[in-house]
């Protein structure tokens, strides 16, 4: 299998979008473009998962082909790296599953194989996860209510880069904040191999209660290069079909 670059958007937010396009629809579009959308929803100490206020978090990740998780800020660091890694495995597993269907027929997936053979397939998935190149665009909600959470977010992002830079494959990270002052998103850190070089990434927050998650996601999509693993993979098979 060809090695490619995995592309992920990691959205960190604490509330619901209230402006512009539906973020789930935008996430679905991103996924079509070969970009996975993962979402972490930060809860207030008195908030519960069952509250439903952050229901949107799950919906966005579902349509973005990614992973979602609601957390309290205290455990943000471990969550950010776990979500990112899990999403990588999930995406690669999807790709490998597609390959399997090519080899074994359309109704075969990993779960249909006897446990003995599943092991070998998972080894391939793990190898890919360790060696593939990865691009993560972190999209941070900096609306007023996030104010006191930003130091924790920064710490978590630093921690994410410690985790991912222990991999064999290469990484590129970038950080954007929304809502931006003039545009939908504000570039905070351009694509770079580490996140630990920046002392203080988040600027003073001025924004009010607007949370335009959809438009921000859409803008984030355009920040990636053209080639992507998922997409090149899809195209590859489309052309296979045409040839046949």
């Amino acid at each position, binding site marked *: 299998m060809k090695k490619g670059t995995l592309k992920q958007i990691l959205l960190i937010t604490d509330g619901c979008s209230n402006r512009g396009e539906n973020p789930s629809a935008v996430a679905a579009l991103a996924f079509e473009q070969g970009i996975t959308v993962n979402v972490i929803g930060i809860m207030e100490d008195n908030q519960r998962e069952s509250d439903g206020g952050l229901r949107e978090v*799950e919906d966005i*990740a*579902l349509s973005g082909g990614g*992973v*979602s*998780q609601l957390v309290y800020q205290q*455990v943000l*660091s*471990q*969550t950010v790296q*776990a*979500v990112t890694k*899990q999403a990588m*495995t*999930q995406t690669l*597993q999807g790709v490998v599953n597609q390959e399997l269907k090519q080899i074994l027929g359309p109704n075969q997936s*990993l*779960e249909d194989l*006897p*446990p*003995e053979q*599943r*092991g070998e*397939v*998972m*080894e391939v*998935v*793990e190898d890919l996860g*360790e060696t593939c190149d990865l691009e993560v665009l972190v999209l941070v909600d900096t609306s007023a209510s996030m104010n006191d959470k930003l130091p924790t977010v920064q710490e978590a992002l630093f*921690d994410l880069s*410690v*985790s*991912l*830079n*222990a*991999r*064999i494959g290469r990484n590129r990270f970038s950080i954007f904040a929304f809502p931006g002052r003039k545009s939908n998103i504000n570039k905070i850190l351009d694509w770079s191999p580490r996140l630990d070089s920046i002392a203080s990434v988040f600027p003073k927050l001025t924004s009010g209660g607007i949370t335009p998650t959809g438009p921000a996601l859409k803008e984030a999509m355009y920040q990636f290069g053209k080639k992507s693993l998922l997409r090149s993979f899809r195209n590859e098979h489309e052309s296979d079909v045409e040839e046949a």
Partner: protein
Amino acid sequence: MNMNQTSKKLELSLQPGTSIIGKWHKNNYRITRRLGYGAIGAVYLCNFNGKQAALKISTSGSSITMEVNVLKTLQKVQGNGSLGPSLLDVDDWQHPGGTRCSFYVMEYVNGKDLGGFIQSHGDEWLGILMMQLLGDLQKLHQAGWVFGDLKTENLLVASSPPRIRWIDVGGTTQIGRSIKEYTEFYDRGYWKMGTRKAEPSYDLFALAMVMLQIYYPARFDKGNHPEKMLMTKLSATPQLKKYYTPIKKALYGTYTSSEQMRRDIASLIMQHSPKAQKPTRIGQRKAAAVKPQHSFMESIVILVTAVVFYLFHMVFI
């Protein structure tokens, strides 16, 4: 932590008496009780043909498969030792609710948690158990693997003779790769004391934290000066005074192999004069009851401890 891959977040709760019949191998396991649960699923004590076994079940087939891969590899290096619970079966099961689950069955390690063991048997056991653990780690590292998620919760002490065992190989990673799974308190990356690359020193840092954790059951945060915090806590623990140097070396990543640390701890135990310490009654009883076991070194250590306690007994009572 519970990750939502899909919208359905299934709480796998199996009642005692439930029969789990594997889809592929058709073995029948009867659930006795739940042993614990964690990131990927739950572990149950079960009964198979009159024997006890531990069954780990999860809706995430891939996680189960990855752990099974590790257990299989460990089995190969195992030889006569015991690197992790032995693997007995792998299969799928259809939950009556319709969800597809994967599970594996392993040896049931009947043991006590490390903290509890030290509390009831005495601090003098810490060094010996750590030597056992370092011996296992040495074998694991030589086979090209790092344990990864080494923490007090993943260690059990089986009794008569006392032997430390690890469970949960979910974090076990090939050397040179990125650590698959870790817990912040035991992770040198969290403490800003090193990378998350799988190398022997990663496990040794975690082992040092295990030793600290026994005397700080509630753990502690890293604060603004992680390194200073570690040293302060280490210095403030009288029970660890004896092991100060090896623990410090492990925290700073000075050791390149488990064997080096094991040797250091061994010589500290050997030279340590027990006159400074009052043995507890339990300590005496257990130490005298222990049968020599495993490596020659351990036998010597246990023998010396037993003799010393015996002499104490003669002199003071």
